[in-house]
């Protein structure tokens, strides 16, 4: 019963944060006006544009990205049975970064700026992360040992970052700046069309993740126990990699790298619900991930005077103390796998 109360609180926190996120920003929208806007009552044109064209897409982006990163992190931690695994450890986000770096700076070299392109940037990012994913997929067919795969993921990620560094070294200041802005991550500027694409990917991945509940739970006991319980291990692992990689790649494509959500959310859910069962962890991680990213965005826009702090800085500031706390409570955390 304690679970359902907790779950209810989590579920209720989501619309509250969603509305707060819409109201709060460089222009504050009164709650009454927000309600009027939804009842079709005339409000100022400026406020209407802010609500429907800027705030709602941004808040929805936060929800989709938060939920995606949380599932991605949860699946990676279970797959690698490692409490510090996250969307970044597989090198998928770095791969996305490499794709973007090559595209931005390559295009810059021939005199074109693509940093504002709604097609080229996500495409480059997706291709980068899918490229890394493909490499890991092929490696996972050969290498059965899960720790080797994790180390390879880190290595591949490091190589991608090294290449990004080299590309940056040979690039113009203007191109470098636009790339760096992308690396800060942003929930803004995602169109409804892009949102619907992101939402569809999330939906498919979440359904797939749900279908893997038993496999995920069994993998927690280790490869051999999972196999002896009748789990189709190879198939399950490939699906897990595909889901976790696609979600991380998608988020990075549209919003840049957003750190730490993927790592911390699953831990928070395990601690809150005191369970290792993915039947509970998947939905609760999705909701908590969405809530935490909305909350981060709220803080990012809290300073008055039209300033907003990069979202990645906020998630780092929230996330790192939690990770340090996790490391200090290592006994209970590392024995969760």
């Amino acid at each position, binding site marked *: 019963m304690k679970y359902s109360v907790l779950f209810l609180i989590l579920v209720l926190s989501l619309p509250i944060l969603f509305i707060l996120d819409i109201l709060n920003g460089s222009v504050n929208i009164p709650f009454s006006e927000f309600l009027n806007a939804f009842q079709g009552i005339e409000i100022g044109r400026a406020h209407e544009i802010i609500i429907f064209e800027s705030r709602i897409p941004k808040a929805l982006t936060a929800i989709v990205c938060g939920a995606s990163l949380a599932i991605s992190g949860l699946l990676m931690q279970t797959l690698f049975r490692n409490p510090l695994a996250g969307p970044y450890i597989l090198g998928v986000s770095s791969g996305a970064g490499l794709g973007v770096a090559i595209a931005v700076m390559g295009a810059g070299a021939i005199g074109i700026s693509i940093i504002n392109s709604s097609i080229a940037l996500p495409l480059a990012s997706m291709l980068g992360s899918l490229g890394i994913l493909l490499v890991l997929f092929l490696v996972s067919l050969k290498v*059965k040992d899960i720790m080797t795969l994790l180390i390879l993921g880190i290595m591949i990620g490091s190589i991608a970052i090294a290449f990004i560094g080299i590309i940056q070294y040979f690039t113009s200041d203007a191109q470098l700046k636009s790339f760096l802005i992308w690396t800060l991550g942003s929930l803004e500027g995602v169109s409804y069309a892009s949102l619907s694409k992101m939402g569809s990917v999330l939906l498919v991945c979440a359904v797939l993740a749900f*279908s893997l509940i038993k496999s995920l739970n069994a993998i927690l*006991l280790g490869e051999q*126990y999972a196999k*002896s319980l009748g789990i189709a*291990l190879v198939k399950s692992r490939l699906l897990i990699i595909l889901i976790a990689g696609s979600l991380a790649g998608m988020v990075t494509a549209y919003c840049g790298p957003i750190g730490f959500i993927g790592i911390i959310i699953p831990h928070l859910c395990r601690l809150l619900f005191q369970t290792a069962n993915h039947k509970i962890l998947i939905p609760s991680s999705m909701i908590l991930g969405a809530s935490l990213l909305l909350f981060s965005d709220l803080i990012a826009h809290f300073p008055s005077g039209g300033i907003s702090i990069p979202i990645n800085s906020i998630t780092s500031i929230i996330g790192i103390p939690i990770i340090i706390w996790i490391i200090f409570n290592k006994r209970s955390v590392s024995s969760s796998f």
Partner: protein
Amino acid sequence: MENSVKIKNLSLAYAKRNTPVMVGVNLSFETGKTYAFLGENGVGKSTLLKAIAGLIPNEEGNILLNDKPLKEWSNNELSKQVAIVLTDSINHSMLSVFDFVAYGRYPFTNWLGKLRKKDIELIEDSIALCNASHLSNKSLNNLSDGERQKVMIARAIAQETPIIILDEPTTHLDIRNAKAIFKLLKLLSTKMNKTVLFSTHQLSSALEISDELVIHSPEEVRQISPRDYLLNKELQFLLTGE
């Protein structure tokens, strides 16, 4: 013969090492009997037990389960025939004893792993059989070694398989706990008619409870009754060095 295991001319190798662990092994196991696997460390007891559980592919020869080669069994079918207790100690802090034993029902539950009334009864009975009912709500990382081993075995019992394989079930256990585990193994074969295969270094207990011994030496793997073993000075020297 129902639920028999026959091993014919089996060769096994460690993964990624070309040197074979054992060559030309022939063994056969019957329902309701207990078999103790004995031999030095590293001689391949675990490898053989895992191969019988279908966890390691064999290079040559055949493992026949009910006269059907192991390779032809699907993962799910096999999980209803063979349960295994490995040496890995699972200390998961977020898993209760009940939750862990419930894993044994995985081959039988739906995609959500939903436990029916019958499953819950079976889980409780398995825990009770291992004298661990009082631990049911405890988390795995709060158990003593002896308690944990009982719970590991309870999970295998809950899997309701005709064959149970245990890799060194009494390592790290004190005398009293080890005795209790051996007693439990005997109970599984005599009362529940399971085929019990286990590896151990405790010769006297193995002689006491098992119907037959499987003795590993670097040269060969031999199946022999405890009585014949006690009469065979050569084999005793091979195993114990005395």
